[in-house]
């Protein structure tokens, strides 16, 4: 077998050194009636590299890749062009096959990268401190809720109705076990987000208010107004961002009163990958709360010779030391995805992220104007970045399927996201990034016209 270096000669010599007659004898502690004397039945035996590749390619071909169709799906995962150097660099074995940098003398590559990553995220979000990443945006969102409850010693969480419903569902699931009280609501189908409605739900018992920016319908809430209302009641404002490119154009949440900013970093460097692995981003504006933060943190220090270096720090918050008193049970971050994000962000710089955001917005505006001309279609949003909601007279999920049958990946029907709310079934969430050409937009418009009844 190509991944096993031991030869039979090696095995014989080593067994002799160990004093065991066979490898099976080393498993003497396994009860003999339960020990398997041969390969598990019902499973295939080993295969060549060529055969495995062929099998996997066949499975791959049964999927419609985004690059092979006009593509307008977003809703929490975004398709952007990833420069070739990103994927090359993350495949360097010293990054790819390294462990968590617990031995800093031989892990400065990962550690310096994490310090740069934390700094980039903090700046993008307008925050003081960011951690070294979490599993994904939805789990980061829950961790933010848990942190806010720890800090405020309150238990009531107000969720904006226009928070990604999967994020809301993760929060609800986890809160069942921590006994936080979750106050949710349905999203309003209005041209602007219902900020006032959200504000009226904040009371003195509220630990945190969770708002998505831009929201699940693509609209842009007035964060400062919500922050002021939350702070007046002693609550923390948690801002969720699922599309980091938007922050190349929109004001950073940390500059608009957010206390905790979390989000999904997948859009930069990581790729769609059918949902994972993704990259949870987590940052706070008040550095005094850093010891209440979940997740790994990398910090600057010096070595015994006085040279600058980096280490994982404040690790006493974590599970391997605090055990049942840890801030979170998480022990993995999303290191390689953080590297991809950081490299992509370095290639962009301030100028690149601003330009990329402008191009996304320009194309989204063109698409919204063009689609508004399709009979039976209206654009809901008054404001948006690269994602907006179309209102149709029919269930948009069927339209999405019909578009796919014609080779167009046209968006997400709101009925898929909010199955319990009948009033939202006509909504079609359309996302336009720099990867969509003007021809793609025209194809979407004409195909939509064909499939609408």
């Amino acid at each position, binding site marked *: 077998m190509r991944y096993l270096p031991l030869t039979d000669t090696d095995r014989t010599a080593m067994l002799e050194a160990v004093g065991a007659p066979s490898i099976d004898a080393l498993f003497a502690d396994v009860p003999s009636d*339960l020990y398997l004397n041969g390969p598990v039945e019902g499973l295939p035996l080993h295969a060549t590299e060529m055969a495995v590749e062929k099998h996997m390619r066949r499975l791959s071909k049964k*999927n419609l890749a985004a690059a092979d169709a006009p593509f307008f799906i977003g809703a929490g995962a975004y398709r952007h062009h990833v420069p070739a150097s990103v994927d090359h660099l993350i495949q360097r074995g010293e990054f790819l096959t390294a462990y968590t940098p617990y031995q800093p003398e031989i892990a400065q590559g990962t550690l310096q990268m994490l310090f740069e990553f934390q700094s980039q995220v903090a700046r993008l979000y307008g925050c003081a401190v960011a951690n070294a990443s979490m599993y994904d945006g939805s789990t980061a969102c829950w961790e933010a809720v848990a942190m806010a409850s720890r800090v405020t010693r309150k238990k009531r969480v107000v969720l904006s109705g226009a928070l990604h419903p999967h994020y809301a569902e993760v929060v609800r699931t986890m809160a069942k076990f921590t006994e936080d009280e979750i106050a949710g609501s349905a999203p309003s189908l209005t041209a602007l987000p219902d900020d006032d409605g959200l504000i009226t739900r904040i009371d003195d018992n509220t630990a945190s208010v969770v708002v998505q920016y831009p929201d699940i319908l693509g609209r842009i809430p007035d964060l400062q107004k919500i922050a002021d209302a939350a702070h007046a009641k002693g609550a923390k404002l948690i801002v969720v961002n699922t599309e980091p490119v938007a922050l190349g154009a929109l004001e950073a949440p940390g500059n608009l009163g957010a206390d905790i900013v979390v989000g999904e970093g997948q859009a930069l460097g990581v790729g769609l990958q059918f*949902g994972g692995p993704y990259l949870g981003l987590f940052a706070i504006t008040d550095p005094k709360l850093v010891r209440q933060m979940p997740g790994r943190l990398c910090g600057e220090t010096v070595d015994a010779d006085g040279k600058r270096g980096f280490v994982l720090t404040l690790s006493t918050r974590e599970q391997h030391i605090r055990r049942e008193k840890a801030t979170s049970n998480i022990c993995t971050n999303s290191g390689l995805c953080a590297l991809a994000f950081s490299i992509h962000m370095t290639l962009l710089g301030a100028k690149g992220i601003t330009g990329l955001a402008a191009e996304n917005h320009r194309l989204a505006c063109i698409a919204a104007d063009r689609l508004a001309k399709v009979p039976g279609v209206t654009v809901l949003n008054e404001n948006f970045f690269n994602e907006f909601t179309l209102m149709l007279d029919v269930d948009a999920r069927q339209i999405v399927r019909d578009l796919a049958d014609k080779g167009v990946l046209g968006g997400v029907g709101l009925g898929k996201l909010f199955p319990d709310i009948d009033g939202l079934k006509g909504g079609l969430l359309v996302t336009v990034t720099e990867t969509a050409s003007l021809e793609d937009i025209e194809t979407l418009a004409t195909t939509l016209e064909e499939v609408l009844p």
Partner: protein
Amino acid sequence: MNQINQSGWKPGTPVASIDGEKHPTVTGNKALMLEEALIFEIGDADTYGVDLPYTPTDLPGRMGKFTRKGEIGLPGLSEPQTVRHYTRLSRQNYGIDLGFFPLGSCTMKHNPRLNEKVARMPGFLDVHPMQPIDTVQGALGVIDELAHWLITLTGMQSVAMSPKAGAHGELCGILCIRAALEARGDARKVVLVPESAHGTNPATAAFAGYSTEDIPANKDGRVDLDALKARLGPDVAAVMITNPNTCGLFERDMKAISDAVHEAGGLVYCDGANFNAIMGRVRPGDLGIDAMHINLHKTFSTPHGGGGPGSGPVVLSEALAPFAPLPFVEKAKDGSLRLIEEENMEEHHASTFGRMTAFNGQMGMFTRALTYILSHGADGLRQAAGDAVLNANYILRQLEDVLHAPFGASGPCMHEALFGDAGFAEGFSTLDLAKGLIDEGFHPMTMYFPLVVHGAMLIEPTETESKAGIDQFIMAMRSLAQRAKDGDEALLTAPHHAPRARLDEAHAARKPRLAWSEPEG
């Protein structure tokens, strides 16, 4: 210069001022060992390495009053600078590709490159999690096929695929247990965890609302069955056990433990971090386990990536299967695959405990793990476990005369060999030996874990190390053990040949500097 870095030294500047530097160079570089400054020091806001400008536009924007007012402050680099920056950083890292990585309980095995090639096929890499189901049948096929392998290898009923890493899987398993107990109206409050357990176990149980109590161990490093039985009762929801355990030993009484827990109305969680030792040799389902997470990044060779991403599917017994979280893949009558989510849940899905993540789990890890599993096949996986155990026993027996092996006398170990620091000279610790290993060109073993052994050194060679490589490691370890016993002072300041000497962790934690800012002076 700042509070942390008081000399103000940074890469690219002379190191003559730094004490102890022999043969200083003006750049601070040493031939192939190249120093690299931060992107904030070498980049600027006007530089970029992508295609710009995009089409300028005079269209009015639709972002209202919310556009960014100030500078973002993100430095950019050109593509050549970017490639060089990260290549230089990479060379300050140790990885499996470079050498032996005997990190106990982490299973740092070779990461086959076929896995990487397959994960990048457009049909896997470039597919959106919310695409219409007919356009992602291959992706669902990967999940379904991998699930079949995991269920069959473990002898369990079903598997929850969405957890993002081991600890997330562990949480998933415990939440399934709590949901199952609640469904039968049984509010138990205590989870029993062995002292030697991974720190995640108590952290997870505490999150799920349980108080934890230690399970005592017996002298040969295993769970004390009688003491466990004596503690079981109507308040015990579950026991969490690692098997093989963190001392590298197989829990001989596992089946009896499970039976006793079940009889007392509780459930059994197994931490599957060490599944690599037993895959294809014994099925956890046959040992009475109700839930076990599988670290695809350990057992099934997906890369650790410098700290993630991981992936932690959880195999479940019949008792727990109905409570698995959304989403999951199900085969329809016509043979097509469906993704069950909130939208299309049916009555028989209603007992799910909820959702743990936004999308479908770590698809990129599933493709890699399945590729690895298909390469090995049922026979190769069984052989891999056997070789991993053989390598560990070989190391145990080749070192037990120079290092204290607390459980060396209690029979063969599984996939990892455990030593303690007994016999080291006064003032010499496991840490010193580990830092000495760095100079010898190896990654240190796991240190000070499990907590039950003083100065623990947990060595896991995995099956992908050659005999010649292991022999060289043994030679280095014998030399270092002798130096630690003899009190060789050079060990106390090791490593001497790494990109950095020992780093001051107290300094970093007292005045944390966690993001870059302009120098103060």
